[in-house]
């Protein structure tokens, strides 16, 4: 509901109000354009012939081409990076979500001091810069021969994702009344069985939202794969950064790569917008 504007259809027309609403709309349109324009332009660049893409003045009408995408995917094996990213992301999700969920559940139900301190610890970990743990991984993985592997990335991503995951899961589980599993326990289940039978069927909204953010974290991560991979396990963000940002010859290709990377994310935004917004906001407003 609007906090100030009276959204009452019978309210008399006041000139100031209408003007304010139009001004707000105009501002938002400009803001939306400003937000989306770089992507829009990249999209155009990716389907233009280079002569159109880099012409000045900028060209708006042109013959589109998918040659850059073809070149990217077929000649340069872009699909290989996609595969790496998919493996790493899936692996992270498969490990991080289950252990984060049960931890979040425990935190939501346990009244003791230990839970409080665990949350604080998680918060501190979340504030740590990547570099605080990155370099040891670099060194150790090289010594143990797991450098440049998927499993290394998955382990690292799972660990840096845990603090956020358990906080988010905890706040979701706190919205599920304890009576649900208590009824199951009175019926004879152990706590874990009660969790499986009573909580798991209803925890999906929270799991989905948390998974979305875990996915984004793993998919978008740049610094970790940059340091911890070389050629075999390289993920998309690192791959695209290597496409010569300054060398104009590679731009069209780069643009095609950028759009390719972005499409799954855009799809997620379109399908899950409400959840994404809810998740982003939840920590701030409730805390």
């Amino acid at each position, binding site marked *: 509901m609007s906090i100030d504007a*009276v959204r*009452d*259809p*019978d*309210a*008399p027309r006041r000139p100031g109000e209408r003007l304010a609403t139009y001004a707000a709309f105009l501002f938002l349109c400009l803001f939306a354009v400003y937000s989306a324009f770089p992507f829009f332009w990249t999209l155009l660049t990716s389907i233009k012939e280079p002569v159109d893409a880099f012409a000045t003045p900028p060209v708006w009408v042109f013959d589109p081409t998918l040659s850059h995408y073809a070149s990217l995917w077929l000649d340069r094996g872009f699909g290989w990076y996609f595969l790496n990213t998919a493996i790493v992301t899936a692996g992270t999700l498969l490990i991080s979500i289950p252990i984060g969920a049960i931890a979040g559940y425990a935190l939501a139900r346990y009244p003791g001091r230990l839970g409080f301190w665990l949350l604080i610890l998680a918060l501190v970990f979340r504030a740590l810069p990547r570099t605080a743990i990155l370099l040891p991984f670099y060194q150790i993985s090289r010594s143990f021969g797991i450098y440049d592997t998927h499993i290394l990335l998955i382990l690292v991503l799972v660990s840096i994702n845990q603090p956020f995951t358990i906080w988010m899961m905890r706040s979701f589980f706190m919205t599920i009344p304890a009576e649900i599993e208590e009824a199951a326990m009175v019926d004879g289940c152990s706590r874990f069985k009660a969790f499986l039978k009573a909580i798991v069927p209803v925890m999906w909204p929270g799991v989905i939202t948390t998974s979305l953010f875990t996915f984004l974290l793993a998919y978008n991560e740049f610094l970790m794969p940059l340091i911890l991979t070389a050629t075999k396990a390289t993920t998309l963000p690192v791959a695209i950064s290597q496409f010569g940002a300054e060398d104009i010859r590679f731009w069209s290709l780069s643009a095609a790569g950028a759009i390719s990377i972005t499409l799954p994310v855009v799809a997620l935004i379109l399908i899950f917008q409400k959840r994404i917004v809810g998740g982003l906001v939840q920590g701030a407003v409730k805390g």
Partner: protein
Amino acid sequence: MARIELRNIVKRWGPVFGVRDVSIDIADREFLVLLGPSGCGKTTTMRMVAGLEYPSSGDILIDGRRVNDLEPKDRDVAMVFQSYGLYAHLTVYENIRFPLRVRGVPAAEHDRRVREAARMVELGSLLDRKPKALSGGQRQRVALARAIVRQPACFLMDEPLSNLDAKLRVSTRAEIKHLQQTLGVTMIYVTHDQVEAMTLAHRVAVMEHGVVRQLGTPTEIYDDPADIFVAGFIGSPAMNLVRGAAQDGVFHAPGLSLPLPQHITRGDLVLGVRAEDLGVCAPGEGQFAADIFSIEPLGDSTLVNIKPGGALVTARVAKDYRGEAGANTGLRADPALFYLFDGATGARLRLTGQGRI
């Protein structure tokens, strides 16, 4: 101090009606209560007087001036919200002062008026506190003081007692009544609690589904309800209502027969009688006869429930009554104390010009 007129007020949102044609004339210094269940339109009506919502059609006049298009700040009304609406970050003093600052009242006046308002609701010692440090009753008094300080033409109150515990409600009720008399303001008070309505109001507008079912003094709506809804809403326990039909001037229902003052024969009637007008007697000596369904001792009186033909009929009898559930008994009331309603429309039937029926 103002006269308020509502003329054919309608409020709708598309096909949904909140208020359907309400017309009430409120005299200067009158305490008017809008009474009804949730969703009946009472709060919406009051908010339209405040200017927080605007009528879809109809006119609102304050002291003869049409105020439909005026914003709340231009209407000279003050409002006490159900959850008080106190400014959480301001002290009590600043909360009360707020309207004066907003309206540009000269600063020299502020202190005197704030303290005067605080004195009237006995908040003098709490002026430095913030709302979260106050109890519910104290917060409510702050809301009152904030309304008083403006010296408005009209006070609007939206269920101000509903968030208080029972004991506090009774004492605050008395304070509000006293306040209205002392200040001499016109008051529109919204509630779903009929006890509040009966004790506070000069007149009550009983509302249901967006219309005023009856507008009258507490005595009028209690003794002379205009329809089944009002009859059933006012009074505790609720009026006994029994469906039946009349045959040759006698009203018949299971376990009940009552001669009517007029010789009519028709179906679809509802007979009403208040619990306090019924007494216990031997079966056959009264209008009702059935087995006792349950007995509820209240301390100051006792309720005896019977269920002739399925409908519950309650009698309020002396507190020393001794009876047994299951025993057959009769209930009797003075024939002049019955009411008759049309079963289909709910309207009150006055067959003769005199008495209740």
